[in-house]
């Protein structure tokens, strides 16, 4: 692969990271608004407020750059980058089109799980470096939550890899059959719940809930750094939706997939993103202890059950 091709692929990944979250963010504004009987942004951009997030971006860029006096400056400044870049790395590995991913990684499943876990560090760094007790409490809650939900997610994904017989993401998509919609259904639900918790989206947003703890680890952030944290949340939604589509919905598989594979991937990912938005609008927030109980006493047994089910199925189908 020539240097030019590498640069082009990297640029494509960066463009996707910067544009797809904005699309999801605008969809969230509009879908959440209509679900609540409102209209959402209508003013920015003249046609139903399509440019609202562009306007927000400009607003954040022109804000004053404040670093608290007592903060650990280098860690404080690095935290948004540490939260955002892992999602760029994970996005690059997802197979979008038959035989094409921006970065071909042989053990894609392990790589993607590891990459998304690094994002946790960004939140911890933000909370610790902020020199603010609410930020610290938020960061500790965040750490507990994200650690607890790593395990069900990894177990669910292990079940998918077992069913496909490969750790490569492209291989999983090729091995997918429609029976997986039933066979892997418990694992799919576990993955969805764990993904929403990893992203700290409602109903699992206790660490950043503004009525509880100001804004948790991100309390002291303003301007572009704050915008990068928000972008990392929506980038995470994009990555997790695409991963769900890849693992459980067949990725680029569909009619005419040799030409339209990329379209199927995006549509399936978009549908899952809308489901995540729907969950946010419909359900109240879980308390920290309810959240932990749900992970350890609800999701992990279900994920283990799924693993057993998959193992039985794999042996039976041999």
């Amino acid at each position, binding site marked *: 692969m020539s240097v030019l091709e590498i640069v082009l692929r990297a640029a494509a990944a960066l463009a996707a990271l910067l544009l797809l979250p904005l699309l999801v963010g605008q969809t969230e504004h509009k*879908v959440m*608004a*209509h*679900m*609540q*009987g*409102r*209209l959402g942004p*209508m003013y920015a951009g003249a046609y139903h407020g399509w440019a609202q997030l562009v306007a927000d971006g400009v607003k954040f860029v022109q804000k004053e750059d404040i670093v608290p006096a007592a903060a650990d400056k280098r860690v404080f400044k690095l935290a948004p980058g540490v939260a955002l870049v892992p999602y760029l790395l994970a996005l690059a590995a997802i197979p979008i089109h038959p035989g094409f991913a921006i970065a071909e990684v042989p053990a894609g499943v392990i790589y993607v799980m590891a990459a998304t876990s690094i994002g946790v560090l960004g939140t911890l760094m933000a909370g610790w470096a902020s020199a603010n007790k609410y930020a610290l409490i938020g960061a500790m809650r965040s750490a507990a939550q994200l650690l607890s939900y790593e395990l069900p997610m990894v177990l669910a994904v292990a079940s998918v890899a077992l069913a496909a017989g490969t750790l490569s993401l492209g291989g999983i998509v090729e091995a997918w059959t429609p029976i997986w919609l039933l066979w892997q259904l418990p694992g799919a639900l576990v993955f969805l719940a764990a993904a929403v918790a990893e992203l700290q989206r409602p109903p699992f947003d206790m660490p950043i809930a503004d009525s509880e703890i100001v804004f948790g680890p991100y309390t002291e952030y303003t301007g572009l750094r704050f915008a990068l944290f928000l972008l990392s949340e929506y980038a995470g939604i994009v990555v997790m939706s695409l991963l769900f589509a890849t693992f459980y919905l067949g990725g680029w598989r569909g009619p005419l997939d040799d030409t339209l594979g990329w379209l199927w991937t995006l549509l399936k990912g978009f549908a899952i993103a809308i489901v995540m938005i*729907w*969950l946010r*609008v*419909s*359900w109240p927030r879980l308390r920290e202890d309810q959240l932990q109980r749900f992970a350890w006493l609800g999701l992990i047994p279900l994920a283990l059950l799924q693993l057993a089910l998959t193992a039985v199925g794999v042996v039976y189908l041999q």
Partner: protein
Amino acid sequence: MSERKGVVPGLVKGLATTARTLTRHTHTAEYPDVRPELPPRSRGVIALLAENCTSCMLCARECPDWCIYIDAHKETVPAATPGGRERQRNVLDRFAIDYSLCMYCGICVEVCPFDALFWSPQFEYSELDIRDLLHEKERLGAWVETVPPPPALDPAAAEPAEVASQRGPVRPVRARSGA
């Protein structure tokens, strides 16, 4: 653990409610690009038809907030016929309503015997300086063109007393007997 059984149906019902609201038409009216639909007899501002006003001062007296300021003087009008009596007329010098005090109760409009005050639904007269909320006679006269025609009477309402009293009593009057 009987509360646990209720968790999943509640979650599903929550999802169903938001999905249903998503499909319903949104009733948001985007003011100021869209004019609001105000009900009839909406109270926005009080208009003065100065030619009807006789400076009887009833509105200024009855206003609970004392926000109406009236100045008037008497003028003599020469006799209409030779040898007749000279008449006196009130001439209105100043009629002002202070909208920073007005509480939009409508007592002044109700009590005016000469139909000089009217309600108008116009509400967009907010000012940057509170002293500009004192509307003088000229400005109050300008509001008259925004006064809508009176709304139709409710067909199910009782007859107004002015009509009912003309019609005569319901039962025929009995002639009184006895001395």
